């Protein structure tokens, strides 16, 4: 079977906006969501920079049992999914009567692990931990909670692929629907925002220390980039077969036409050129289009010296002759890690549907490795018919997705 796979809903809860409308406005204006969190400095962080968004208030929205097992990234994901279901015109009655699945990207849940062990150490009695922490602390917490809240009956698990988790979740969802194994899957990615989740990452000297200018700290591809800025939130996309979307008269927002994946097979944290190149090449091959037909590349580029340089070389190998426009929305959002692969498809979808390319803010000067790319510095009106979105992660996991405007 070779079903066409379409996107009929999307939702976002991000440091640059709490819904699609706010996020689209931020993307168009090049607005940063980065702050300096002084509490991290007091804790001993090398860098206190982070993306930040308000914690959702779900008391009165979800009952206690649904809330008590849900960590903050689950709350972000719940709100993103509510918006995606609304956009897709899907209600609870539909979810009850049909086999709808969930594949969500998530790769940590630090706070409940820390808090529950702190309680054990203090009280010396596991019975004092309570009922919620076990469900909050597992990596599968998001898919676990949302599948219960929305009473889902299809495939149900979490994809943990480091900073490519959200992208792989979409890719695997695409493959399952393409092969006819599921008609509809809620896909996405979620990332907690808290010092507990990022302290050990800060220990790698990987974060920008441009603390005097938080909104200029994330500067992918720029000569003076000095590291990434951790961030978070959640993004959800509703993937379904074209047949299902047509049957229920859904508005089709886009079509997933390619997924490529690879592993570097080298270093646990240092990226290379060949792994990303192979993932992109496989996605383009799967899409069945020439690379020159891709109108925009949403780069993974996180603002690290080595990562951006190697990605630039990989993009240049495939797109150099076309001077394809490239930007990294992480310049505004920071690095949304487990969420990023899904959120960046949402960001690119918003660009495609609203005829613009969001800027790679803070890109002032290229270096020798990034000079080759056509990096978009300021918001640019553009017709995007097809885009490619990159996501790479620790362990050398790589994912690339190709999405196209829908045409019958």
């Amino acid at each position, binding site marked *: 079977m070779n079903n066409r796979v379409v996107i009929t809903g999307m939702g976002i809860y991000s440091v640059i906006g709490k819904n699609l409308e706010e996020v689209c406005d931020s993307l168009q204006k090049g607005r940063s969501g980065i702050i300096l969190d002084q509490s991290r400095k007091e804790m001993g962080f090398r860098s206190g920079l982070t993306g930040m968004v308000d914690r959702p208030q779900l008391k009165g929205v979800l*009952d*206690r*049992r649904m809330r*008590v097992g849900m960590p903050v990234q689950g709350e972000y994901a719940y709100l993103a999914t509510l918006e995606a279901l609304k956009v897709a015109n899907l209600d609870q009655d539909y979810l009850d009567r049909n086999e709808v699945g969930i594949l969500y990207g998530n790769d940590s849940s630090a706070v409940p692990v820390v808090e529950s062990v702190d309680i054990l150490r203090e009280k010396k*009695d596991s*019975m*004092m*931990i*309570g*009922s*919620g922490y076990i469900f909050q602390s597992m990596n599968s917490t998001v898919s676990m909670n949302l599948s219960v809240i929305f009473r889902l009956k299809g495939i149900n698990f979490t994809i943990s692929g480091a900073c490519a988790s959200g992208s792989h979740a979409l890719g695997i969802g695409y493959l399952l629907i393409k092969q006819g194994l599921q008609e509809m899957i809620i896909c996405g990615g979620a990332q907690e925002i808290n010092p507990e989740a990022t302290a050990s990452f800060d220990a790698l000297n990987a974060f920008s220390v441009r603390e005097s200018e938080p909104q200029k700290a994330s500067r992918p591809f720029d000569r003076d980039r000095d590291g990434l800025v951790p961030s978070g939130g959640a993004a959800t996309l509703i993937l379904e077969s074209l047949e299902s979307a047509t049957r229920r008269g859904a508005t089709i927002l886009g079509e997933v036409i390619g997924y490529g994946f690879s592993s570097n097979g080298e270093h646990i944290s240092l990226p290379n050129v060949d792994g990303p190149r192979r993932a992109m090449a496989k996605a383009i091959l799967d899409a069945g289009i020439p690379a020159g037909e891709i109108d925009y590349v949403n780069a993974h580029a996180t603002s690290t010296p080595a990562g951006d340089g190697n990605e630039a070389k990989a993009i240049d190998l495939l797109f150099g002759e076309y001077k394809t426009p490239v930007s990294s929305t992480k310049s505004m959002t920071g690095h949304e890690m487990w969420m990023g692969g899904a959120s960046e498809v949402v960001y690119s979808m918003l660009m495609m549907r609203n005829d613009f390319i969001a800027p790679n803010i803070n890109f002032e000067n290229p270096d020798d490795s990034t000079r080759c790319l056509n990096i978009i510095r300021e918001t640019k009106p553009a017709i995007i018919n097809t885009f490619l979105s990159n996501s790479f992660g620790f362990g050398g996991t790589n994912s690339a997705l190709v999405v196209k405007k829908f045409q019958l």
Partner: protein
Amino acid sequence: MQNDEIITKINSLLINEIEIDADQISPEADLKRDLGIDSLDFVDLFVIIESNFGFKMKAEEMAGVKTLEDFYNYIIHRVNPN
């Protein structure tokens, strides 16, 4: 602590911590069937009682506790054993 104070405190904890509707609170209410307190809520009640009354409930002592009145009596007995 007087018995009526204990009952008032238990009711308040059930309403505010377990989020049971106030109008469902009555001594004859069955904890599971009428108040919807499931096995996971009981785990949280262990924590709530310890932090508010200063003692740890024992699972084996809860076997005969079916109604809210049973629960009041159990807590009263643990707080005021004499």
